[in-house]
């Protein structure tokens, strides 16, 4: 009896100490403050990892630093965040293969979320994605754009969006190249896109080209991909690509590095085009931004994984970081500093210094034409298989 009493007393003391410690910490850490931890009380941090598509690296890295500076806690424990930049398609493949076990993922597009859901469900009984509050949510949104060197875009009179793909195609297919429009010194015309086997924007580009060829915006089918006329048309464009970089960030950097010598027209995310307008002028001159007649949006979903390697505390920590990323202040920074459209519908476009104002004369615009329907996984795979089989790279 005495022994039980002693144990209870001991337990009481432990609990009391914990409560006291928690209150002490609470007192010392004002909301959003950066007060140091009290000496002598060290709580094991909760460490989360986020695998993300590299296109938003700079915004995420800056937001992570700001978030951690607020000393965020879950159940009294500090949070650590490891950001791991991985190609968006690679995120899915590596999770399925078992060699990537992040707390949350943020690929470039919901396409990857759907691919992950499909492949996971085929192998497991428990779904890997939550419903409800922790269901995947878009962080930021960015469409695809065609970037061209202004002088060359003007020579081709590339200002009718409805005809953009066909104008570009016809020039790429010409054996005369730029001589067709009076500029033999520019040689053959050259196209640029990423490798669809490794990069999200590469597959999105192929989807837009396929829809454009078939003159529709939904219902892309395997028969459309296998159509011989479409394949010949695609050949003309893909054979005019000198190199397929594996990420969109690298592609945009190469456009500025190598200029019109290597790329006449490239398909990249709008935010990367916005980021590059000023630096391109220091190297080769002005670039212009064009919007295809039908677009595909990258919505950068943030998905906490419902997996055995994620603890409830880690799930909470990942949710706190997501809410921080969706806060008005961080969303506005994504817009003004990094050229992303806000994922939080309550955040306004109309803020001072918005790139949609600053770069309007370069063709950057708020309004996007209609979006194409995302094709089902089997059609996407057929498109990638076709691309690989034709050995364009």
């Amino acid at each position, binding site marked *: 009896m005495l022994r039980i009493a002693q144990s209870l007393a001991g337990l009481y003391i432990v609990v009391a100490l914990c409560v006291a410690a928690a209150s002490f910490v609470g007192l010392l850490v004002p909301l959003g403050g950066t007060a140091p931890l009290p000496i002598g009380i060290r709580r094991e941090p909760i460490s989360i990892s986020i695998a993300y598509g590299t296109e938003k690296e700079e915004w995420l890295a800056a937001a992570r630093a700001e978030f951690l500076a607020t000393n965020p806690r879950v159940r009294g424990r500090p949070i650590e965040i490891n950001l791991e930049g991985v190609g968006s398609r690679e995120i899915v493949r590596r999770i399925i293969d078992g060699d990537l076990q992040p707390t949350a993922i943020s690929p470039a597009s919901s396409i990857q979320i759907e691919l992950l859901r499909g492949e996971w469900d085929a192998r497991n009984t428990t779904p890997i994605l939550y419903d409800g509050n922790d269901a995947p949510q878009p962080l930021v949104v960015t469409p695809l754009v065609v970037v061209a060197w202004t002088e060359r875009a003007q020579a081709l009179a590339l200002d009718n969006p409805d005809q953009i793909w066909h104008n570009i195609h016809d020039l790429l297919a010409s054996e005369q190249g730029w001589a067709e429009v009076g500029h033999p010194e*520019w*040689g053959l015309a*050259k196209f640029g896109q990423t490798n669809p086997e490794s990069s999200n924007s590469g597959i999105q580009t192929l989807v837009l080209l396929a829809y454009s060829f078939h003159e529709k915006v939904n219902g892309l089918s395997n028969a459309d991909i296998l159509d011989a006329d479409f394949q010949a048309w695609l050949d003309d464009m893909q054979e005019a690509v000198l190199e397929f970089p594996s990420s969109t960030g690298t592609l945009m*950097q190469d456009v500025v*590095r190598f200029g*019109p010598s*290597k790329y006449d027209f490239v398909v990249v995310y709008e935010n990367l085009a916005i980021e*590059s307008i000023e*630096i391109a002028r220091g*190297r080769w001159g002005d670039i212009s931004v064009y919007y295809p007649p039908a677009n595909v949006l990258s919505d950068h979903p943030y998905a906490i994984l419902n997996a055995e390697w994620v603890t409830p505390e880690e799930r909470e920590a990942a949710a706190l970081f997501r809410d921080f990323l969706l806060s008005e202040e961080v969303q506005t920074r994504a817009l003004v500093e990094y050229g992303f459209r806000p994922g939080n519908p309550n955040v306004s476009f109309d803020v001072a210094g918005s790139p949609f104002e600053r770069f309007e004369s370069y063709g950057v615009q708020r309004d996007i034409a209609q979006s194409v329907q995302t094709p089902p996984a089997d059609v996407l795979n057929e498109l990638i298989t076709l691309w690989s089989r034709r050995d364009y790279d």
Partner: protein
Amino acid sequence: MRRISLMLLMVMVTTLVAACGDLLPTGGDESLAPDNAVVVRMLYGSEKEAWIEAVTTEFNNQRLESTEGRPIFVEAVPIGSGESLDLIVNGQEQPAVWSPASSILVPIANQQWAAANNGELLTEENPPPVVLSPVVIAMWQPMAEALGWPADPISWADIAEITRSEQTWADFGHPEWGPFQFGHTHPDYSNSGITAILAIAYAATEKTRDLTVADVQHSDVAEFMASVQQGVIHYGRSTGFFGRQMFNRGPAYLSAAVLYENLVAEANNPELYPNLPLPVVAIYPEEGTFWSDHPYAILNGPWMTDELRDASERYRDYLLAPEQQQRALEFGFRPADPGIAIGEPLTMENGVDPTEPQTLLAVPDAEVTQAVRELWGENKKRVEVQVVLDISGSMNDEGRLNSAKQALSTFIGQLADEDELGIITFSDSAAVLTPLDPLGPKREDVLQRVNGLFALGGTRLIDTVAEAYAEMQQFPPGERIRAIVVLSDGADNASSTSPSEIVNLLQADESGRSIKVFTIAYGSGGVDTDLLESISEASGATSYESSSDVQEIEQVYRDIATFF
């Protein structure tokens, strides 16, 4: 001002190193590596030597710590890009980092490595560039203007056509300029040499992309390649060497050469070349050109550790940081960091045009590049080489003669059957071991004769060189690269010709197709290094010093062979 002086110093050091025949530097500062350092050894294209030397010293001085807490030390070794590829693939070199002049070589290295290593890749497929410079045709400005530049663009096909049709400057209204003398480096050793022969193959097929192995193997292409190569004055180990030959020796030596843009900007810097006879311009060929993009490739060999990889990544990040990238611009490169605007010294006043190139030749697949290299090997300009070998009594010391015989046999092995070889030995008098004629039919006999040589008597050096030179002068210039390779271990004590007479004789012919006299000051027994240097200098060739170590003297002969 201080920066320019540093650049001048770098160029002077580079020139000196080349002149002394420093062959495969082991990373001069290895002795400065702190104890217990993790050493990041990097083999890199020598075109960026001045920049790498300047920034790497500062990196090493930072004494950064590795993941294991050891100091990080970078040992950077400048070397021709084709040559470093061979050394790595053959296993003779195991660097952590390889940074050749161009990513053209990366798929070739991966392919060759995979073939010998169960399909493993040597490095990632698209390593990031650290600096950029376009491949250009460097030409003296008045000569470019005589061809219609800048109003009329000049193409690879134009250069090929002038070269193969044996047109001279008289056809362009300037008989006083003599023949059109063209040059590019040796494609087995140097990246710009590979780009030059790819461009010639493109010109032959009238294509600018989609070059195939079948295209390259067409007989017309072989004929085209052979005729262009006839007009080449000689080859060379590195692009930097070629640039210096052109800028120091002037338009009588070379009319035009395939170089990099950064070298043209350097040539027009009066601090670096105070006696440049005429301004030099970079021609960006009409059909397009290639970029020299200096990829930074961290290798995957079994010698790599996590610690070494991490240290290699930190050095890469350092090279790509804005400060080092800004300095690259000062050295005439276009920074890989797209955020750094192009400015001085890349200006029209310095002969370069930052708005060029406007189009490119497509980089072919590895097997196509290989086919072009083979095509060149079969159709390159042939050499006639006269070896002049000292067999005086002192060659018995230090086992010198035995080492020299072995190295000479290796050298003979590098010559093709169609090349012509003669060997003259000298001691108190000269003797023809084999006359100057095609090597193929006599190869075995010559090797046996070399093997049977023994040492005896005095040193009749100058007269023998003068005789060999006079004999070779009888052959018409231009058909073959003409070279004399002199090896001596002593001071002349038996000639009637004076040192100044031989120097005057050699200096009389200033053209790029003149007979080049390479000299090797051999052993440590009273060799007349000054005499040998003045002979090679007067002829426009290179002088070397070598001990009697077999590997060292073999390396000297190998270096000479890059010239042809």
